[in-house]
């Protein structure tokens, strides 16, 4: 505090005693409108502190007279959103898949909901938009191990693939021809050469392919069929197309014959509610490969 009040010679106004580079600050009164708004904000803040959560105690806080809680507000909002969605979700959960795809409003809702559920649950393995990745099936193409109709897709989602916690899970197992000693290394090479010819490709070793044909008919055709078209009932892949889940090179096919890899998908029935399963089915079916 300055000990004596100094008055500015020119204006007759008191100075605050502050001085910067010879420039002194005048102690003009605050504009009244500004001052009143300032007082109003003080009153407002006191009222606010009484009404809303404000002062922290040692073990908790003063919650305000209105009992306002942000957590409750957000729970309310989520509840309201759920309620708004309920009419769609209930209809989707109860409705038949074909009927669903014929109702434009429900179908659009299901596609959007299905996409969200897909991106949360499926995309880590099957890729965004069903793009797939190495050793995980592409869902956007026209090849299906267990069937690509809406009913098939729904069932696969529901029970999973080789998911032992579910008794009804889709299950198939190809014998490990090399590891179990059913074929020796040459026989595996012969069969692999023959398998390549099934999809119209030239076998690297045509003579081996000829030898492999007999072995194939004896050991493989039961599941993969004589022409290599596979069998969806058993989940045995087609060998006569251009798509190879575990690689289409000779060595890769030999490795798969010798010690097959088998993909596993969790059963989503029970984890996801029926409406979400239906929405997922429609979404996966719409990616481009649906039958």
């Amino acid at each position, binding site marked *: 505090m300055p000990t004596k009040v100094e008055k500015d010679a020119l204006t007759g106004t008191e100075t605050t005693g502050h001085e910067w580079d010879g420039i002194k600050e005048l102690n003009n009164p605050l504009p009244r409108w500004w001052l009143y708004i300032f007082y109003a904000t003080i009153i407002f803040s006191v009222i606010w502190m009484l009404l809303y959560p404000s002062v922290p105690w040692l073990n908790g806080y003063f919650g305000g007279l209105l009992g306002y809680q942000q957590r409750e507000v957000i729970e309310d909002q989520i509840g309201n959103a759920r309620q708004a969605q309920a009419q769609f979700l209930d209809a989707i959960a109860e409705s038949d898949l074909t009927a669903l795809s014929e109702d434009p409003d429900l179908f659009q809702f299901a596609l959007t909901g299905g996409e969200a559920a897909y991106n949360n649950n499926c995309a880590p393995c099957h890729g965004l938009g069903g793009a797939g990745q190495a050793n995980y099936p592409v869902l956007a193409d026209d*090849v299906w191990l267990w069937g690509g109709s809406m009913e098939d897709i729904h069932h696969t989602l529901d029970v999973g693939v080789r998911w032992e916690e579910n008794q009804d899970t889709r299950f198939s197992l190809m014998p490990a021809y090399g590891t179990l000693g059913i074929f020796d290394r040459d026989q595996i090479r012969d069969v692999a050469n023959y398998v390549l010819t099934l999809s119209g490709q030239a076998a690297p070793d045509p003579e081996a392919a000829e030898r492999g044909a007999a072995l194939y008919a004896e050991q493989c055709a039961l599941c993969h069929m004589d022409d290599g078209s596979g069998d969806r009932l058993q989940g045995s892949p087609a060998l006569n*197309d251009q798509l190879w889940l575990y690689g289409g090179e000779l060595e890769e096919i030999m490795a798969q014959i010798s010690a097959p890899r088998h993909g596993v998908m969790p059963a989503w029935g029970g984890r996801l509610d029926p409406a979400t399963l239906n929405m997922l089915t429609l979404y996966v079916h*719409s990616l*481009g490969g649906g039958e």
Partner: protein
Amino acid sequence: MPDDQTQLYADTADVQSREEQKKAPLFAGHVKVYPKKVAGVVRRYKWAVLIGLLAIYYLAPWLRWDRGAGVPDQAILIDLPNRRAYFFFIEIWPQEVYYLTVILIVAALGLFLATSLFGRIWCGFTCPQTVWTDLFMWVERLIEGDRNARMRLDKARMTTGKAARKVSKHAVWLIIAFATGGAWVLYFQNAPTFVVDFFTGQAGVGSYFFVGLFTATTYLLAGWAREQVCTYMCPWPRFQAALLDEDSLVVTYQSWRGEPRGKHKRGTSWDDRGDCIDCKACVSVCPTGIDIRDGIQLECIGCGLCIDACNDIMDKVGRPRELITFDSERNQALAAEGKPKRMRIVRPRTIAYVVVLALLIGAMAIGLSSRSTLELTLAHDRSPLFVTLSDGDIRNGYEVRILNKTHEEGVYTLALDGIEGATMSIAGQAADDVVEATLTAQPDSIASYRVFVTVPAADLTSDRVLLNFILTDVSTGATVLGEEAFRGPEP
């Protein structure tokens, strides 16, 4: 004191040193202006403009314009929920909002041109602040009387009579302000149904808020703030000096004719004196409370009411009219020297404004008349970029959107070009792998289709080939092209 000594003091009597000038207070409190009633040519023009502009403002939302079924029939409507703007025959979608920008630029340039020709006629005659202030002052005069009566009333003790006048004045102001705020919202709503909804409490919260907001601003700005808006709030007076030149018409006191001013007694000679009798009629009618005889100044809005007031006085004292007049600085200089006046309308400045205005208006007219009513937008799937099918063919997914800006349902054919052997399947359509598909779009809306394009692997020359989508309107034959990449594996 000797005579020459007196002369010496007289010349320097009002000289102030810098220090003395500085002691003047920096803050000046508001002095209320009580403009006096005035009649005359300028006032009649002002009434005519005021009535015309208010009529346009209040009535325009009620005009109808038939656009067919399912489309609003309000001539001027900004339909925010549906993202459309209608102005008679013009319809604008959100992506065409640049037309609005052009309109604003044209308006600004028009203002510049008018200002360089005629001074601040915008401020004096057409600015909403001026129009509504004029209307509010008219109400004030009807209820509280003219200048002197109003000044007396404001000074008088509060009585029942004074209170009644004040209350009724503010009530009428608020009614006008409410009509103004309400009419503003009508430009964003279907007027006939909205008015019913509004008064039955059915309108949205936003509507009530904006009606309240514009009621408040109209009441405050036209009732209370008045000339302070022009002097302190509006940027326009600050840079109009740059738009005026010595040929612009401005409200001018002809000082060469009026000075030296002084009181005049009827019957005495007019020789050796000016025509100005210093009656201050010009000051008393000024809505911003200035003295036009001080020359052109920021506060002068160029309304010209002082011209009417002065003409009235000149008629009474029998001197020529137009002591205060609309004239240019150049003419005043010529007139002072006794030379003939010369109006220069065509000047480099006005030519430049007219040329730019013509270019802009022309460009917009061409743009609007050739505005497409059909657009095609394409979006390639982000994932997967491409899919290899079981027979080795490559398939890409696209989102195809058709913007149908007409008011009829559109039927179109979609065809592909640029890649041999390309076929397509439309999600939701039965036919697979066709070379031409039929698509439809509802009136005035966007139709969205998922299109899968398949190309035999042998026909694909690179991992990225451009594919053309050709959309043809079946009824008109109009065609729009879209180009997108077709992706595949590296060959």
